[in-house]
């Protein structure tokens, strides 16, 4: 458990993806079965047990520490688990109730008496202290270190060390396996005593991880995908191979590690309806088109819904199992029971989940309302009828189609959907085009290019190479997404802040503003913050500008000059606007990013708040604004 805690602790501070991978793979290499398997389960969110309430943790610490000291500590640290982990006074059998930080009967304040505890090798005593010199010849400098200055002169810690003897007197700290397997079966009444024992046995980091784990507050900041990739690296395997067999595996993954280390056969996924890692698209840039031939590509609408994989398969007895997966492989079947009966043909469909009312695709906002509900009631199903719009077929009955070119898969898909003949599942139409100009026009006006009344739910077009096999991940040049033009304004840089991790030496987080009428003439009002969009070279330029034009510093934040004639204009692109009480300007941007540096433009020529307000009105007439949190899931 201590070693696992150390890994979690290190991961929490490490910003780099590759470095996180190295840390996790290093752990898998160093730690044996079954501990590493339970660690993999914890990292992929595959562990489940009843969680302890924070009140239980509070009771435990209250039984061991002075409430005033706990209160002051908690105020300082600000996190319950961490405070308890740091100040937990270990109890060692036979040592009674005397702990640092816990009041116990006061010692005699008489001079010298307490000192006997630690003054064993002191030569000075209360009697010779009064003489002018006690004749000792302590050198001022611990000249050459050997034999001296290694500490140990003062034995004041001995009293405490007796309370914290090294491990040979203690039961060994629990392993991760012990913690996980015990928690699974432990009764509620036994939990406090068990936790107390573990807290006594673990070190600070171990206690922190244990408390986070049992309270269900373990946020590691890595994806399940990353943990699987780290496991794959142990055996130099492709992470997709692990992904493919994953649904058939269970903690502590002994068969997986045996295979990865070359000691066993590859585990077989016996799941009749397994998830297949998804293929993703690159965002296309204007400059990319020159190298592309329109004839090589098929275009489809990019729907503003949720990307899913709908899989149906037959088990050994011929029964059909149907499952719906998110694009990360999470099983979301339970949230859409109304779609399951439609998945009756064995196969694997890649498509978009949408809400259809009277044959019309609803905005993402409407879909969002259904996603927000925890309980799927008959009323919800009726008001928010679910629909699957299919654009690819990865498996047809028992046949894996992923090696086939897209054009061929598309034909199979059309046949499959026709055979299925279900009102809840239809085909995503292709968008015919002969040239990039024609496609540009279609993208600008989906309604008249075939999307008709569903045009509001179109957020751009997808381009797929006719000959592309279905490759997991984001392979270069196969699929492109071409979103509708983002909104763009010119704003003025107002404040800059240091970034995090690798960018912590740069001012890379920018607050920008636009002009509005103030009491004393025009003034800048902040309208957003951006952290990306610029190139590395542009980052250096902005960083230099910030350092040379700082007017004030507040902690990590610098105020940067922003006058009508001096300052930096940033071209900011964003996806949409929302009204916001939290912002002084009254508007909040979705996904703002720096698209260009306008060194050529004086700040006085930057945009005004009215421009944003007009955009907001236009946006509100299109009900396609979605919340930021959902943007990543599609």
């Amino acid at each position: 458990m201590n070693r696992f805690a150390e890994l979690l602790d290190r991961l929490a501070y490490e910003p780099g993806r590759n470095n996180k991978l190295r840390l996790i793979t290093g752990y898998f290499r160093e730690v044996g079965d079954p501990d590493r398997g339970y660690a993999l389960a914890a990292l992929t969110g595959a562990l489940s047990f009843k969680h302890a309430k924070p009140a239980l943790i509070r009771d435990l610490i209250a039984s061991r520490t002075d409430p005033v000291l706990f209160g002051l500590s908690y105020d300082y640290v600000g996190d319950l688990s961490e405070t308890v982990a740091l100040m937990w006074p270990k109890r060692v059998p036979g040592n009674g109730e005397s702990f640092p930080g816990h009041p116990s009967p006061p010692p005699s304040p008489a001079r010298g008496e307490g000192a006997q505890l630690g003054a064993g090798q002191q030569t000075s005593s209360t009697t010779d202290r009064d003489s002018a010199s006690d004749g000792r010849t302590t050198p001022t400098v611990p000249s050459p270190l050997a034999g001296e200055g290694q500490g140990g002169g003062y034995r004041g810690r001995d009293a405490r060390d007796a309370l914290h003897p090294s491990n040979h007197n203690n039961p060994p700290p629990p392993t991760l396996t012990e913690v996980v397997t015990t928690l699974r079966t432990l009764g509620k009444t036994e939990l406090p005593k068990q936790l107390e024992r573990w807290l006594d046995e673990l070190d600070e980091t171990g206690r922190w991880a244990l408390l986070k784990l049992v309270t269900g507050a373990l946020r590691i900041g890595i994806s399940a995908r990353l943990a699987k990739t780290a496991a794959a690296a142990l055996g130099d395997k492709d992470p997709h191979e692990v992904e493919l067999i994953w649904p058939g595996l269970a903690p502590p993954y002994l068969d997986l590690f045996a295979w990865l280390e070359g000691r066993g056969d590859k585990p077989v996924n016996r799941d009749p309806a397994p998830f297949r890692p998804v293929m993703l698209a690159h965002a296309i840039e204007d400059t990319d088109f020159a190298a592309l031939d329109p004839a090589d590509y098929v275009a489809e609408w990019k729907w503003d819904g949720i990307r899913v994989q709908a899989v149906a398969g037959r088990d050994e007895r011929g029964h059909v199992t149907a499952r719906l997966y998110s694009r990360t492989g999470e099983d979301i079947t339970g949230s859409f029971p109304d779609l399951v009966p439609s998945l009756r043909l064995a196969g694997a469909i890649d498509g978009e989940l949408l809400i259809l009312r009277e044959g019309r695709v609803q905005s993402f906002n409407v879909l969002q309302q259904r996603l927000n509900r925890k309980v799927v009631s008959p009323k919800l199903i009726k008001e928010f009828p679910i629909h699957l719009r299919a654009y690819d077929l990865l498996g047809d009955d028992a046949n894996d189609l992923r090696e086939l070119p897209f054009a061929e898969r598309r034909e199979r898909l059309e046949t499959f959907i026709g055979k299925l003949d279900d009102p809840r599942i239809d085909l995503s139409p292709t968008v015919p085009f002969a040239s990039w100009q024609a496609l540009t026009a279609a993208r600008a006006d989906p309604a008249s290019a075939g999307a008709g009344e569903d045009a509001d739910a179109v957020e751009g077009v997808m381009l797929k190479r006719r000959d592309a096999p279905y490759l997991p991940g984001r392979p270069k040049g196969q699929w492109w997404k071409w979103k509708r033009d983002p909104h763009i304004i010119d704003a003025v840089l107002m404040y800059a802040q240091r970034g995090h991790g690798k960018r912590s030496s740069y001012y890379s987080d920018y607050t920008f503003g636009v002009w509005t009428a103030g009491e004393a003439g025009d003034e800048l009002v902040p309208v957003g913050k951006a952290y990306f969009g610029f190139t590395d070279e542009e980052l250096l330029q902005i960083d230099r500008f910030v350092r040379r034009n700082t007017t004030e510093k507040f902690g990590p934040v610098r105020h940067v000059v922003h006058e009508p004639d001096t300052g930096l204009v940033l071209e900011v692109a964003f996806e949409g606007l929302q009204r916001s009480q939290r912002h002084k300007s009254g508007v909040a941007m979705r996904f703002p990013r720096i698209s260009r540096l306008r060194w050529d433009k004086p700040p006085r020529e930057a945009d005004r708040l009215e421009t944003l307000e007009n955009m907001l009105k236009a946006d509100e007439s299109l009900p396609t604004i979605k919340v930021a949190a959902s943007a990543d899931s599609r």
Partner: protein
Amino acid sequence: MRGSSPAMTGEYRDTGAYMSTMRPQDILLPAAAGLCCKPGGFHIDPVRPVERAVITHGHSDHARAGHGRVLATQETLDMMRLRYGENFAGSTQAICYGEEIRLGDVRVKFHPAGHVLGSAQIAVTCKDTCIVASGDYKDAPDPTCTPFELVPCDVFITEATFGLPVFRHGDAAGEVRKLLASVALFPERAHLVGAYSLGKAQRVIALLRQAGYDAPIYLHGAMEKITKYYQSRGIDLGELRPVMGVKKAALAGTITLAPPSATSDLWTRRFPDPVTAFASGWMRVRARARQRGIELPLVISDHADWDGLTATIAATGAGEIWVTHGQEDALVHWCQSKGLRAQPLDLVGYGDEEESETPLQDEAEA
């Protein structure tokens, strides 16, 4: 709480009176310039220029320039000379650990504080009352300075930089092993260790050597002078090199020590994909480490931790404790719960030392 500090309760009485009934506050009393010993005619670690200063150690919030006469250990005087130049004081007098001298009506004796090279606790005795002003101290092992010595006394003045039970520094050697494990795991990256220039940096280097690390260690320019001084006092730190002028690629797999402020600055761009470490007692609290963008927090402190503070206080046998420099409230509470008289000692201008600085403010939104 503050109203009952010695400054408020003790009205200073003239010479005739204190000879007969000696209260601690008649011997040492907080004043605007620092802790003042009227019967001895000196201040301890004064923050303003005074006629006669007695100084515990070389950190800049304790050792300032401009005093008339300065009494300190040879190392502390040397460090002041390094920082402030030859004329940092009117005159100086060096004193050894264990040596006692008479100043006015009191006797003053220096004892090792185990904080940094040359650091001392100052025992002030008048009649039969002994007060120990311990300055900054630690009771943990440190290969670069003389170990802390326990001095029995009537009144113990203790720092409280890490005066909360959440601060337990653990084994510094273990933290250094953590650093070395990271160097082994990431041989293509540079490891940049933020450490205060006086004391901490040299201790980290010495701990690395103890752990068997014998490759050259690189230094930021700001710590070269003081580190050379440590070496000149016979402290073996192995091969050290200035990092200035070294090619980026050559720094892969190496360890560089730098002042903490440098580890988050432009200066770091000369290193290949640096792992930023910081050696400080503050690193025990995660939010603090994250706030500074640290990737590898190393809990190594030159101050006593909570367990060290409380064990030391109990062991001195002092019946009265004055607490200064940090988290006074918790430590005062602990003392009182042990039946000891305790109060915060309000010293204006203290607490500016590097390690006890308030870390950067929370980033506005991040």
